[in-house]
């Protein structure tokens, strides 16, 4: 059983794709993709437990901090770059987006939607920084230094002239309730975007 966002990404990744998975965690996604879809590639991770779990699964894992960029990966060397739940922890998410689309023509990104209604209740009504399943940390120890909303991300993509080829939201264990399709910025807990390079 995979996390909702991973389930969805799993379906989006084409067979035999060459994939770079940024912040690959324990390698669950890459292992499933390799086993069932003949996907090849590498995961980048810095968490020691995650790295060891990857090795146990036979996932190729490179210990690398994403804030250092992807300069060791060549232009167009992958079909797809995936980054789940890490964008909001990076020093410069916008630059990482450029890097991801340098290495591959397409990328899939998931992040916690800060405008999710429960988060709005926390902040707007109760007056506290939101704490939820997707944002489990307190304000003082959170690794999430660049929180954004579904709308914010779309805005950034528009500014950069990037093409959003697909978008979805996850809520808890489920995805795709009708309300999330109409008001994703309000009802989506996790934002999932599939982004391509700008049209030339």
């Amino acid at each position, binding site marked *: 059983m995979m996390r909702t966002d991973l389930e969805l990404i799993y379906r989006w990744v084409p067979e035999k794709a060459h994939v770079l998975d940024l912040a690959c965690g324990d390698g669950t996604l890459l292992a499933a993709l390799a086993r069932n879809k003949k996907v090849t590639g590498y995961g980048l991770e810095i968490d*020691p437990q995650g790295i060891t779990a990857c*090795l146990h699964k*036979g996932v*190729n894992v*490179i*210990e690398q901090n994403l804030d250092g960029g992807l300069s060791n*990966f060549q232009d167009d*060397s992958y079909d797809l770059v995936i980054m789940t739940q890490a964008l909001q922890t990076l020093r410069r998410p916008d630059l990482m987006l450029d890097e991801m689309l340098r290495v591959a023509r397409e990328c899939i990104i998931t992040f916690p939607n800060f405008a999710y209604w429960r988060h709005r209740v926390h902040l707007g009504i109760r007056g506290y920084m939101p704490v939820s399943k997707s944002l489990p940390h307190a304000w003082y120890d959170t690794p999430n230094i660049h929180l954004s909303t579904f709308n914010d991300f779309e805005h950034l993509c528009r500014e950069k002239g990037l093409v959003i080829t697909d978008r979805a939201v996850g809520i808890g264990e489920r995805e795709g309730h009708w309300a999330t399709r109409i008001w994703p910025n309000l009802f989506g807990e996790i934002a999932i975007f599939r982004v391509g390079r700008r049209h030339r």
Partner: protein
Amino acid sequence: MSEIPTDSVGLVSPRTVHFDTPLALACGKTLPAYDLVYETYGTLNAERSNAVLICHALSGHHHAAGYHSHDDRKPGWWEAHIGPGKSIDTNRFFVVSLNNLGGCHGSTGPTSHNPATGRQWGPEFPMVTVSDWVHSQARLADRLGIERFAAVIGGSLGGMQALQWSLTYPERVANVVVIAATPKLSAQNIAFNEVAREAIRSDTDFHDGWYAEHNTVPRRGLKLARMVGHITYLSEDAMGSKFGRDLRSDDLNFGYDVEFQVESYLRYQGDSFSTAFDANTYLLMTKALDYFDPAAAHGGALAPALAPSKCPFLVVSFTSDWRFPPSRSRELADALVRAGKPVSYINIESPHGHDAFLLPEPRYQAVFSAFMSRAAEELGLEERT
């Protein structure tokens, strides 16, 4: 040593195997016949699919694990990682560890008898390279009936041999582990080696390498070489926390005798090495280090040089290693990625410098054993209980 720890392979004894098929070497010379001394730990399975080859570093040898007798003060040099339940689990794997050609621990080398001249080989022992070692190791595998190694593993110079295995015999190795190594030496690395060699050669007891015929040993040269080498094996922090500026006595004595603890330590290391290691072997092995550069044949580009490799790699470095720093392992891992080869790269936090590859460290052990147990599963190896 009276009680042998239960996680040790226990009492082991070396064996020697003789080869009389000539071995053509990279330098153009041919070794007509030679011996290799080796040890094994664990049991070779019926399919002969669970063998692991251990390649040793500059001053290493075949005695990687276990004890030769109950009186041994110390076990083999990689006891931390070879044994039942350890990273290289002898309940699963059959471990082969040899002394390389040109060595001074039983395999044919400069201290061996040269039948062509009737003298010791001495300085006339042909220069051997990492590739030559790999060829000789493959012949040892043939003799042991091992068609394909489950893994070839090495640290430092041993890691270079493991890497070379995947290029020279890609069909004969299922996994490669390269620890604290580099795809080639830097100018600084070569410079340190040259200081060590010059220390040996300039010792008046060296006699152009014929010291044995003069019944002497270039002890001062070897000692200096080891002292310089030893500094590069430790990190500044490790030396600082081990010795600081501690003095042997309470006061400064304004002389050139040993005053600081670090001086005492280095002299002790140098002295014990100078009586245990052969000078010609040291010269030869440092040259093998200097020459190693698989990318050279590809105009310096490493990724295309790695094209023949077919197996998964584990590349490990240590944060405080400045002899072969993490950036050098990273270079190898990046080139493997560019070549599209399966590789995992881990940088272990350690204060112990280059020597960290010899020591136990929880995270090092965790990643090493994770990779090895995955390798065992892939090969369908069962645990022997």
